[in-house]
């Protein structure tokens, strides 16, 4: 195969002619800009890229991308995208979904897409609220959340989307945040390179119904101390001056935060997204506190497993390889297989 030709696309090439209609200040704008800015890097012709979404504010996304796109129905994007991806391995298929779309009504399709390792890049815009239906709690809202549908507080514990994905055998799991374009793009890059399902949770601010949900991760006063930036192969330290670090106390299964100054270097966990056992990434996913302290962002896990698409296509290819007739001849043979008899 020859080197791919550089297509020289720009972010502008990925802007559709549709007026963007999120509330002013919505985190979705930043994500859109980041995605549009990242797309040229892929060096994939626009026509070979498809965005499939469900329903929700976030799910309006495909309309704004000048690629192929489908704004489908609530929760079903992973299923629809699976059919597309499996039947068209030549395409780059992206799913855009919300915390309600992906984890509430669409939970089953999501976990099955991950288990199958369908070649989808799944971007979950997590604003911990239902935006489009005007502010009910979502499966990622904190316990006791007061919303229109829970006037005295929600009664149920939220999902941790990354834990759920890992429990569902995901091969690529990452988290990023709307406000940090560079980081967001670095995660998109890793996701795009992954063969199989790449699950990316993006913390997104809904300034109308759940404003400030991720402020501790954004405000100058707290963000450095709260955010843990995972870098493959690097010891996990954080804080403005790297004063905190993550250790794996012997005997325990989880991770803990320590002061770097008082911790022997060799005790600091060195991040390795490629560990085969998901237990490590799972432990990472449990690190954040309710106040969002110790929130890792970056690629938690990225391991190889054949994608569903590739296995299915190989099976078809293998069967086709045995064929030495025209489809019509083959069909005639198939129709006439089994016990036949002839009347003259």
């Amino acid at each position, binding site marked *: 195969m020859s080197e791919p030709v550089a297509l020289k696309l720009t972010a502008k090439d990925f802007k*559709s002619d*549709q007026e963007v209609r999120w509330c002013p200040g919505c985190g979705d704008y930043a994500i859109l800009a980041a995605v549009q800015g990242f797309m040229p890097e892929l060096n994939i*012709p*626009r*026509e*070979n*890229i*498809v965005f499939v979404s469900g*329903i929700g504010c976030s799910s309006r996304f*495909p*309309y704004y*991308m*000048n*690629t*192929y*796109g*489908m*704004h*489908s*129905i609530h929760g*079903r994007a992973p*299923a*629809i*995208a*699976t*059919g*597309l*991806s*499996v*039947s*068209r391995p*030549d*395409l780059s298929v992206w799913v855009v979904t919300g915390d309600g779309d992906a984890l509430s009504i669409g939970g*089953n*399709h999501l976990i*099955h897409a991950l288990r199958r390792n369908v070649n989808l890049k799944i971007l979950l815009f997590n604003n911990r609220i239902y935006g489009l239906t005007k502010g009910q709690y979502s499966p990622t809202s904190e316990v006791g959340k007061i919303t229109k549908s829970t006037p005295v507080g929600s009664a149920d514990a939220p999902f941790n989307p990354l834990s759920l994905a890992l429990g569902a055998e995901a091969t690529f799991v990452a988290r990023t945040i709307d406000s940090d374009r560079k980081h967001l793009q670095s995660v998109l890059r890793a996701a795009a390179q992954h063969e199989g399902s790449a699950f990316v949770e993006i913390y997104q601010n809904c300034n109308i119904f759940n404003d400030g949900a991720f402020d501790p991760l954004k405000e100058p006063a707290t963000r450095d101390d709260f955010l843990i930036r995972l870098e493959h192969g690097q010891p996990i330290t954080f804080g403005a001056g790297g004063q905190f670090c993550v250790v794996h106390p012997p005997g325990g299964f989880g991770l803990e935060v320590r002061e770097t100054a008082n911790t022997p270097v060799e005790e600091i966990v060195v991040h390795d997204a490629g560990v085969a056992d998901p237990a490590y990434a799972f432990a990472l996913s449990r690190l954040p506190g309710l106040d969002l302290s110790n929130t890792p962002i970056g690629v938690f896990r990225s391991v190889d497993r054949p994608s569903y698409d590739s296995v*299915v296509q190989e*099976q*078809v290819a*293998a*069967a*086709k390889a*045995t*064929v030495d007739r025209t*489809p*019509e*001849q*083959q*069909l*005639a043979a*198939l*129709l*006439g297989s*089994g*016990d*036949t*008899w*002839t*009347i*003259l």
Partner: protein
Amino acid sequence: MTKQIRQLDRVVIRFAGDSGDGMQLTGDRFTSETAQLGNDISTLPNFPAEIRAPAGTLPGVSSFQVHFADYDILTPGDAPNVLVAMNPAALKANLADLPRGADIIVNTDEFTRRNLAKVGYAASPLDDDSLAGYAVHPVALTSMTIGALAEHDVSKKDAERAKNMFALGLLSWMYSRPYESTLRFLERKFAARPELVAANVAAFRAGWNFGETTEDFAVRYEVKPAKMLPGTYRNITGNAALSLGLVAAGVRSGLPVFLGAYPITPASDILHELSRHKKFGVVTMQAEDEIAAVGAALGASYGGSLGVTTTSGPGVALKSETISLAVALELPLVIVDVQRAGPSTGMPTKTEQADLNMALYGRHGEAPVAVIAPKSPADCFHAALEAARIALTYRTPVILLSDNYVANGSEPWLLPDVESLPDLRVEFATKPNGEDGTTFLPYLRDPQTLARPWAVPGTAGLEHRIGGLEKADKTGDISYDPANHDFMVRTRAARIETIPVPDVEVEDPDGDARVLVLGWGSTYGPIGAACRGLRQRGLSVAQAHLRHLAPMPANLGEVLGRYDKVVVPEMNLGQLAHVIRAKYLVDAIGYNQVRGLPFTAAELETMLEEVLKNV
């Protein structure tokens, strides 16, 4: 001993036994032999309800009925002339269906006290006079089989298992069937274990010879070949024919077939069959549920495949929301509903036609789709092609309403010439269609078909977005404009209403019928047989059968208007009759049975005779 040979024009045999007795296979083989001989055939299996019941119980009975004749027949037969009962349960479960005088061949070895008790026989019906009026042939099938295999190197269990071949041998002798195909079949089936080939062949021959020698079977029958169109035939079930039709649709359209399916009785076999045809480029995906199955099929259609999903009623209910999306997206999609008895889980192994309403009306909003139904097992092949043709040409979901009766029944199928099958090639959009020569309008319609362009991802310059929100005419942009919505709703309706479908044909050989019997789907056989019966008795009756339920044939109104009375037999509470009444204001009378069973020709004949009397 030379036996008398008697000619018959038709025979109905039912093989019945325990689930483990291999009755389906026995029936299949007998059918195949019969096909080789050139009789017309119609068969119907009857599986036990979903769970394998303990051996010897009533719920565990499995049966297979085959009707064969020297003329063309339409149904598997109302009542068996011969019952093969492998155990007391099989006898008890089937006796009520037998007309007096029928032959009953029983495996006496299984009429033990324990087995009798299992099904509530206080005494053996073979010993009292409860079977007087039938021609009972007690045969020690099991022990004779074991005896015949004494010298064979097989376990006792394997020997005992071969008793169905003994029964098949006996029946094959009785009806003078050519058995070469069965011998070949046994060789194939047990290729890996030659000792089993030998044992089963020996059991078969023992059965044959038993017929030849025993005095109990004094007469041997012959049913001459039927006059059938020249050509090559095979015997085929509806599910198999439907599967092949979908494969053929792939070949004739040049598109890969993508099946998204979730297993459900009685549709699962289509998934099984299609998953064996990867070399045609058919991709099958067993999805996590019915919603994912139809979603994946729709996604594949969006990508340029022929998206298909197969299911039964409960699955269609779950798919409704996605079918509604497909209506909005205007993409091809074939939804196969192999109907079973409802509501809810109902009786999953029984037949019914009660999903017509759901197919026509079961979606939110104005969401019209095309609906068609096959009339017989072999017709499933052509119906599948027709469904694909409509879906591809008009970019619309099409619901194909099969049912358990056609799906599992079988009949001889005249193999079509592949080149004569409809040409289903479609053209994908390849370039801008806007007046300016650069814009692409995904909802600019073909003036003829009202279909929108099918621009598949990967086509440079046609990047566009579609979705479930209302779309502006032509551009497909999101639109809340009231007039546009009204226009789009009416256009989607017109797109279905104006699909040209063949006129309905009326069979009225006498030309003076005043009563029309109108049916759809799998009732074709029994209705046809009933009409024949009436005509043979000098009564005039007209028959018309709908393949297209939406849209309906253009001439239907005129046809209905010609008759004094229109009778609509259905295995539901009158769903087609309702539509006919609404559309044509014709006082269609429903004749309805919702028993999980096909109509018998006899009951329809009786009912129609009553109707004829009163016009």
